[in-house]
């Protein structure tokens, strides 16, 4: 297992996962969100080629009201 931060909260996921697998392991469902890894946007098209490593920080954002 590795320890990562997801939206500011520490959590653990299995080692060796790519972003697509990590998102699934974290139980994020649907398509209406976007993701940044260590502060940098990761496009959906590159989820499977981007690996999640120990101490990585992930932001997962979804639409909300805005001004």
């Amino acid at each position, binding site marked *: 297992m590795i320890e990562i931060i997801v939206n*500011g909260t520490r959590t653990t996921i299995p080692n060796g996962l790519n972003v697509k697998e990590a998102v699934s392991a974290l139980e*994020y*469902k*649907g398509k209406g969100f*976007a993701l940044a890894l260590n502060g940098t946007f990761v496009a959906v098209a590159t989820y499977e080629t981007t690996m999640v490593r120990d101490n990585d920080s992930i932001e997962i*954002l979804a*639409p909300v*009201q*805005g*001004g």
Partner: protein
Amino acid sequence: MTKHIATKTDTWEIGGKTLSSRLLIGSALYPSPANMEDAIKISGAQIVTVALRRQAAGNTDAKGGNDFWDIIKSFGIEVLPNTAGSHSAKEAINTALMAREVFGTNWIKLEVIGDQYNLQPDPFETVKAAEVLIKEGFEVFPYTTDDLVVAKRLADVGCKILMPWGSMIGSGKGLMNPDNLIAIRKQFPDLQLVVDAGIGKPSHATQAMELGYDGVLLNSAIALAQDPVKMADAFRVAVEAGRLGYEAGVMQEREFASPSTPTVGTPFWHQFT
């Protein structure tokens, strides 16, 4: 005899779209989603601002995000995502890239905040982010102050739209520095200018439009009104009135009084001594 009938203002172009409403409306702070929907619809706005925030794990479709997005999509109007909460060019750029993927638009309301107290935009980071985002193919709607030199720098890096503030976000104080806004208008006759932030009353929106601004973006003034739906209607009329007034050409101010009723034939005529 010519009959004069008040007509709606004509269309305008912004970000490659042709629109008839010059009111840009926010989607936050309403008492309920239904109230938001009614207010946005009656406002006639054709651009609505949205944002991105952290999503709770599990069941994304059911919790907030996609429900809200489905409501917004059902309006059939243009969506303008913002980068609210960003404090650096890097944060704003990455938020914009995420917004483009989620909302499927290259429009971005660029907000890079430089001070937490008055939410004043950081001009240095805003210009830096604007330059990168334009190269990335975004249509940047930069939230800025009414500083002419910052406006110039944003134009220099390719911004076709400028959104100077009227006053602090959510303050409702109206146009703090109309002379500065006029200077920006005069300096950039060909850019699309939208007063963003600080509008509190319909008359503030009218004033901005009378200055020759192309549009007004607001949220709190409608959402925090006692009756947001009625206020949305009031802003619709106010923006139209201001634009019509601008197009009609406002009379020149005078230093002295000048009677409007003819002086010739004045009864009981006498001269003040």
